[in-house]
């Protein structure tokens, strides 16, 4: 096997595991004895992206900290479906905060550990896009600027799903929500509104910022691993499709997350100290229509006649991301691993 590097073409490194791959190169999720930080019996909808994202991130963080970890969880779907009194789906030390102050609670837990002289136990704060992008943003920005020793993870499903699919600051342009109905010429959520929390986090100059999705576990776990190697304020933004709020089939959760990346609408990148270091190249570039069409929240774009101008504007957003983050990669990278 000296003459060339054998790649595992049967699965590449795109599948969760592979009997032919060295155990060191397999994902935490492929481990028969993985932590299952979020266990069975939770009440998330069929095909919930957030349930997947929560297990992926926290299992990887538990593996990185050898189980020495405290989780702070802002109010949101994740709390609602995992902790129906008196039952809990959590197999990690876990604190529930109110909607807006999870980052501040995380800061407090980290300070308490420091006061107790515990340098081993780490703090992970998790929230939805509502608790991070909107309601919790003041506390989060404070946590960032003080460089408190917490990893903050936002599970972004692009609206307030728990309360009935209301628009958030992370809702994409043209998406229909309960508060952005596509009525008449209205496109759903207006173009030009909302904000990019990952880029806001980069602007805080903290040690580590990354984006990930539930469609690529290798990429997500590597980013959690790097984040846990560092101290100080770190931010991970994970796209978690919501079958209920997005109007997608439950079995399509991972496919939709993959399409978000392959269209360029959700760039995967890593940044440190205010600088974007690396973006994951798109492997098979597809037009935004491939991503939009399977989602009922964009169904009004494909009526009779279709709203080609709105679709073109969304394509423009994707094209801008591709330019800005260099998502077509170099020939060397070629989108292959």
């Amino acid at each position, binding site marked *: 096997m*000296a003459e060339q590097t054998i*790649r595992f*073409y049967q699965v590449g490194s795109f599948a969760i595991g592979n009997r032919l791959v060295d155990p060191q190169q397999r994902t935490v999720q492929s481990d028969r004895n993985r932590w299952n930080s979020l266990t069975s019996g939770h009440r998330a909808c069929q095909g919930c992206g957030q349930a997947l994202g929560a297990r992926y991130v926290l299992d990887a963080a538990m593996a990185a900290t050898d189980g020495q970890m405290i989780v702070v969880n802002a109010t949101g779907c994740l709390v609602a479906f995992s902790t129906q009194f008196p039952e809990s789906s959590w197999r990690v030390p876990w604190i529930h905060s109110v909607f807006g102050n999870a980052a501040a609670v995380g800061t407090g837990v980290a300070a308490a550990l420091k006061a107790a002289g515990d340098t081993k136990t780490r703090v992970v704060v998790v929230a939805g896009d509502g608790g991070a992008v909107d309601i919790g943003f003041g506390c989060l920005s404070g946590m960032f600027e003080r460089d408190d020793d917490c990893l903050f993870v936002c599970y972004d499903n692009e609206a307030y799903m728990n309360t009935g699919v209301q628009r958030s600051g992370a809702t994409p342009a043209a998406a229909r929500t309960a508060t952005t109905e596509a009525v008449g010429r209205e496109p759903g959520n207006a173009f030009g509104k909302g904000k990019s929390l990952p880029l806001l986090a980069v602007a805080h100059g903290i040690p580590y910022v990354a984006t990930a999705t539930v469609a690529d576990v290798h990429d997500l776990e590597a980013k959690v691993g790097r984040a846990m190697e560092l101290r100080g304020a770190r931010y991970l933004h994970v796209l978690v499709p919501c079958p209920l709020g997005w109007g997608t089939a439950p079995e399509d959760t991972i496919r939709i997350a993959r399409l978000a990346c392959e269209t360029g609408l959700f760039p995967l990148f890593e940044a440190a100290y205010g600088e974007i270091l690396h973006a994951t190249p798109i492997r098979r570039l597809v037009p935004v229509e491939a991503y939009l069409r399977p989602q009922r929240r964009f169904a009004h774009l494909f009526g009779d006649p279709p709203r080609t101008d709105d679709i073109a504007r969304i394509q423009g957003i994707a094209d801008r991301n591709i330019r800005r983050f260099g998502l077509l990669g170099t020939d060397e990278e070629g989108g292959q691993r």
Partner: protein
Amino acid sequence: MSEHPFAVTLEAGSSRANLTGSWRVERPAYVDRLPPCNDACPAGENVQHWLYDAEAGSYEAAWRSLVEDNPLPATCGRVCFHPCETACNRARLDEAVGIHAVERFLGDAAVSRRWRLPEPAAASGFRILVVGSGPAGLSAAYHLARLGHEVVIHEAAPAAGGMLRYGIPAYRLPRAVLDAEVGAIFDLGVGLVLNRAVTDIAAAKAEGDFDAVYLAFGAQLSRRAYIPAADSARVLDALAFLASSEGAEPAAIGRRVVVYGGGDTAMDAARSARRLGAAEAVIVYRRTRERMPAHDVEVEEALAEGVSVRWLSTISRVDEDKIVIEKMELDAAGFPQPTGEYDELGADSVILALGQDADVAPIGDLAGVEVNDGVVVDDHMMTGCPGVFAGGDMVRAERTVTVAIGHGKKAARSIDAWLAGKPEHAGERHELAPFEDLNTWYYADAPRTVQPELEAVRRQTGFEEVVGGLTESNALFEARRCMSCGNCFECDNCYGVCPDNAVSKLAAGDRYAFDYDYCKGCGICVAECPCGAIVMVPELI
């Protein structure tokens, strides 16, 4: 309901008390489907299964799986026209997996590492006569011997192998490879009588006290076309020519050779003629390239070696040093029609390769045997005469080595069942695994490893093998391009993508199990299974 009084703090419990499986209206289920390669293999090989072993570097296990169906992998890896690769789903992603190259590698490894074919079962006491030692006869003899029967092959030629030896040139199938694989079958205790042409089957059966007979003496009668020829013209028959090039004294053919016909035999004859010193080898064929029956690989290799072709031409006369050809044109139905335009072509000899028919004379007056474009057999390869079976080129089917090997296997199983007086046990045939059911995202793009080909010049001067084999690392690489269509290969995707942790990962080789207490039936595992080995089935409600 809770037995606690109103308004007290309860002890925390696990959500595992909440069996979310009750939400489900459809359940996922693991299946094994029939990969298109297996479906297409005329020898009935379980291609996906032996590639699975080869991928892990377990070459001997892979070979053992292979020889369950086909005792001649080194041979087939060279001469089979691999319908498996034509059917391969990977062709729709990048290029088909080089199945034949891996098969050949495994067959060669078995020869060089001296792996022994599986030992036969306990003796059954039955004696079976096999007539002909070509691929059909050898395959039947092998499978019958494994089932514990005593097998004797009667072969008319001075060596075993049939068309493998006397029809396929050595540059496509080196004789050392053929001898090793054929020898391994006789090492199992199969009897061989050489130079014994069976002229009366009924007599041969009675004489040897055989319980059943398998006829596999092929199609040896060359078809002729009436062509006016000068007395001094040299006209040869392709089969005889190919057989002579196997011997010490090949037929004299001169410098300019014309081969008449468009099948694989014509290609082999023209390529052999080049190797025997013909400066020009021209194939004359009455139709077009698209309509030529020869396999593409053979045509390509022949052209690369300097063989030329006169398309849309028939030979109307043969003289001592030239032939006259008439140009043809295709009519609306695609049949060649004469145009009345003639041309001359210099030729020292003409080799006729116009096809073969089965010589059914030995059938004699065997009761019940029907002959219609070959010997007629039923679904169990049995002729109209009970206990007399037939296969290979002498029955009506595609005439390839691999089809013959498949016939031999099928006939052996039928003979075994017939001797035991039991109905034949037909294996369960799974549903086909279509390309549409794969999630090809998980298969990285990979080009096929190209077999190193000998220099074109070198091929024209001798009978060395033309296409080289794969090295071990290349073979492993090629095997790992298999997508395992319809059969779990333990990639852990279903285990990883379940939002409800409702998939258990079992010990290596045992795959996975669903925990239906918690499975909500979302179907992500089905959508993300790379190889389409999970289906959703309605829940009985």
